[in-house]
């Protein structure tokens, strides 16, 4: 089954799916593991594991700092992959995706990176700075390996652009809820509703909505409009403030 089919299947029992995010090696792989455990045990559907990069231009201050601290801790790409492999084994109920920037992939070797991703049981990749124009071979290789190359819709995308972009996507479309970087509050208002209607028309892929989703109220508002809510910065903040043990209850509370 493709990731898209997997998600559709889950949607038969759930009003909305959840995807969470964390930065590998921040604050440490041990904490990462505990956080992932709590997420998995509380029904998260997908998790983005971000391989840290020194120039995370699309991330806001919280994730950006997490990238930086992780690298300062000495986190390497190889370690991240090793850790990811363990997680995929330990939490088979979760769909894992790598999130990173293109240089990490490029230096690893595009094909090698994707093969490895597939091999460890991941289902897709999200690359913050690889628009379809630059990612032709990347998309092709992903498809060949049955991996989902996640594409983005944004509030600045024209309908035509959405249609174009969607052609390159698999799994789901990551709909950025507002302009800007990660980590800022998004008002899920009328504009977002209209925007998501557009998104829906432009593709048959499930819609994941991210950027600024921080609690149950947000998730609730997305129900019926999107297929998956993406919680990014909110959990990083939570772990920073209350430690990994707070994650379970938070996740459980998102979708009552």
């Amino acid at each position: 089954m493709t990731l898209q089919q997997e998600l559709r299947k889950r949607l038969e029992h759930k009003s909305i799916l959840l995807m969470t995010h964390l930065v590998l090696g921040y604050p440490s792989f041990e904490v990462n593991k505990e956080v992932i455990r709590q997420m998995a045990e509380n029904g998260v559907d997908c998790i983005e594991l971000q391989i840290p990069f020194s120039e995370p231009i699309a991330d806001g201050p919280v994730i950006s700092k997490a990238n930086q601290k992780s690298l300062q801790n000495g986190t390497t790409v190889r370690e991240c992959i090793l850790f990811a492999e363990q997680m995929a084994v330990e939490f088979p109920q979760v769909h894992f995706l790598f999130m990173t920037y293109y240089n990490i992939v490029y230096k690893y070797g595009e094909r090698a990176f994707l093969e490895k991703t597939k091999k460890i049981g991941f289902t897709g990749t999200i690359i913050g700075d690889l628009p379809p124009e630059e990612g032709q071979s990347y998309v092709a290789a992903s498809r060949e390996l049955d991996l989902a190359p996640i594409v983005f819709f944004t509030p600045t995308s024209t309908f035509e652009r959405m249609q174009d972009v969607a052609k390159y996507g698999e799994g789901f479309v990551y709909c950025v809820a507002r302009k800007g970087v990660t980590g800022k509050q998004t008002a899920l208002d009328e504009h977002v509703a209209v925007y998501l209607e557009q998104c829906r028309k432009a593709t048959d892929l499930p819609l994941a909505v991210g950027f600024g989703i921080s609690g149950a109220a947000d998730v609730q508002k997305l129900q019926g409009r999107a297929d998956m809510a993406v919680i990014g910065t909110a959990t990083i903040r939570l772990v920073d403030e209350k430690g990994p043990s707070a994650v379970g209850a938070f996740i459980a509370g998102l979708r009552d």
Partner: protein
Amino acid sequence: MTGVNSFSRYRELLLKSLKEKVVDTMKKGYFGQWGGAYIPEVLHATFVELNKAYDLARTDKKFWQEYVDFMQNYSCRPTPLTYAENLSDHLGGARIYIKREDLNHTGAHKANNVMGQGLLVKRMGKKRVIAETGAGQHGVATATMAAKFGFECTIYMGEEDVLRQRPNVFWMEKLGATVVPVTDGSRTLKDAMNEAFRDWVSSMDTTHYVIGTVCGPHPFPEMVAWFQSIIGIEAREQILKQFGKLPSRVYACVGGGSNAMGIFQGFLQDEGVELVGVEAGGKGLETGMHASRMVGGKSQPGVAQGYKTMFLQSDEGQMLDTHSIAAGLDYVGVSPILVDLGEKGRVRFESATDEAVLEALSLSMRTEGIIPALESSHGFVQAIKEAPKMQRDEAIIINMSGRGDKDIFTIAHAYDDPSWKEFIIQRAEEYKNRV
């Protein structure tokens, strides 16, 4: 120089040359295998708009004329080509000419790019500009342009640089810009650039990001090179008039590569003219404390900050810390156009150490009464090394990208001038007593 009229003629030639000689696949802004536009999807529409505006401007003769007129009336173009008679005599060998970008308004070639983008922003109807800056030169130039065009202006600058380059921060603020210290990463230039992108992805409707060099996603490398080509257009005309024939070599320092691309373009089609780019050798290539991407074999192809080029990075793709006495050369990446020209053998790359730079600077001051910026002094180093081995009937041009008085804190520090230190200590005492 009559200048003005001949510009449009040259412009045609140049664009032709840029396309034919450098650009293999122009479609997506590639130069050979370098360049591209690795941008977050949210910026797609913004880049579509920018590409459109740039293409319109590029094919509109009136725009270039407007640009040239503006630069003549606001920034002293054409800048002179000064025959460095004393330096030439002192060294023996080739006759040395200096292209005087230091005489631009705000003191460096940065003005060419910034004012050009300013005119474009006016056309696009945007009301705000943002920029990254390292040493602060591009920041001051952008703040100046914003004041002149009536734009709002925010400058991102690594916190380290804010502390080191207070004089430039002071002027930016006085010119009406908001300077935001960036506390991410190494808190220097590349981090400022990241932060500017972060601003841009939320503000693109009203805001243009004025990238300061021939780097970043397409169309920036090509566009900035286009604006800077005014240096080469003038220099070619001037050397023919003053020396009677083309120079044997043209030297320019290479940070991002904009001043180098600016002057090189004037001579790209002249196969007999060797083009030499000089990178920051810092404390020596062997120490790892440098910013040489083309020389020294330590850099690797990579993709960051929106484009593909040679980056100083780890094997896993994390960017490294760089070092140069010249803040403007202290950058991990380099123009994709220059990498391509290097691969094709059209540009030779060299590097100059901090120490050699200070020596060249001294020599230039004493023989010519000219104070090149620390960045520009890198070009002087290599020219001074090579000129003596050349013939008297040959000429070389050094592109003096900026003036050195901006660097007084660094230079006085580097020369370890005791009176300077005393002066600063005394000033500090006064301030402390009055606080």
